[in-house]
């Protein structure tokens, strides 16, 4: 099935086209979402939202970018929305527990810092890396994840982010500098 046949089929709500879309893109969508949100179940839920969005707005799809680029864009946006929601929820929960603590008079908030000494090692490493990556500015984070996790070429990242290749290079350079700085600080602090 060619891309234009697929698009036509989706506009006409053809079941074969829908099946083809899901078979063809689900793994990439789930994995990309997973690289952002770090929890597979959340990534799978997000992938449903991505395909729904694709299905609902396929008539607005403009063919100046490839379908896969368009789907990647939707995936990245949905993943970032999820992270923003999660951040807001975390802030709310922290405020809530702070208020509860104030009433109890005991402080139960311990700012959990993962350490490499406790050896559920992979988990700890994941937490450290996620913490550092999530603290990057959004554009740097997208460029870093698409390049390091997805192993995408600068040109493809540029297309997804709607930027020039040189801007992506610059974003990646800054992302790596920032990450190094954060990680080195962490390693020095929790040595």
């Amino acid at each position, binding site marked *: 099935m060619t891309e234009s046949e697929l698009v036509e089929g989706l506009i006409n709500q053809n079941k074969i086209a829908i099946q083809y879309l*899901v078979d063809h893109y689900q793994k990439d969508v789930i*994995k990309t979402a997973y690289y952002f949100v770090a929890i597979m179940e959340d990534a799978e839920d997000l992938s449903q939202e991505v395909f729904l969005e694709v299905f609902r707005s396929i008539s607005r799809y403009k063919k100046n970018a490839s379908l896969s680029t368009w789907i990647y864009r939707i995936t990245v946006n949905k993943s970032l929305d999820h992270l923003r929601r999660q951040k807001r929820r975390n802030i709310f929960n922290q405020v809530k527990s702070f208020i509860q603590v104030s009433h109890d008079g005991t402080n139960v908030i311990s700012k959990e810092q993962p350490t490499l000494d406790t050896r559920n090692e992979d988990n700890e490493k994941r937490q450290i890396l996620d913490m550092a990556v999530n603290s990057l500015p959004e554009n740097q984070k997208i460029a870093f994840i698409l390049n390091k996790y997805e192993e995408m070429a600068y040109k493809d990242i540029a297309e997804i982010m709607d930027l020039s290749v040189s801007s992506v290079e610059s974003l990646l350079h800054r992302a790596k500098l920032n990450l190094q700085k954060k990680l080195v600080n962490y390693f020095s602090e929790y040595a």
Partner: protein
Amino acid sequence: MDCLFIRRNLFSYQEHKLSDKDTKEFEAHLLSCAECSRIVSEFRSVTSVIDLRKDAEPNPFAGTRIIQRLESEMESNKEKREPVFIRILQPLAVAALLVIAVLIGYSIVKQGNPEISAIINHQQDIQAIQSDLNILDFIDEDETFFANK
């Protein structure tokens, strides 16, 4: 080479993007600086998570769930596209069916039950007689009127 260079080029070293000369100096520094050596080792260890994450596989039924979600979306789209039938034509059809059912019931009852038929016939006879009588009264009244004249 100083510690700052090491800490600013961790990715470049890991990705083999340093020149040969810088790589040699980088490694020589690590041999002489325990703190930088530890940091490089920790950095390598933490960034190895990237490769671990790449190996993660999604649930094999995830695709089925996506299809189900899309199909239910299609169903709800269909329902949205048929509001005229659901909101207007369907109640009208039900009302028409009810009227037809009542009429059919009435005619069946009328033909099938002799007592009711007899009552209805009897009532019709009474009505006919009454109308005859009314006409006769009218004729009588006319005759009286003309006689008086």
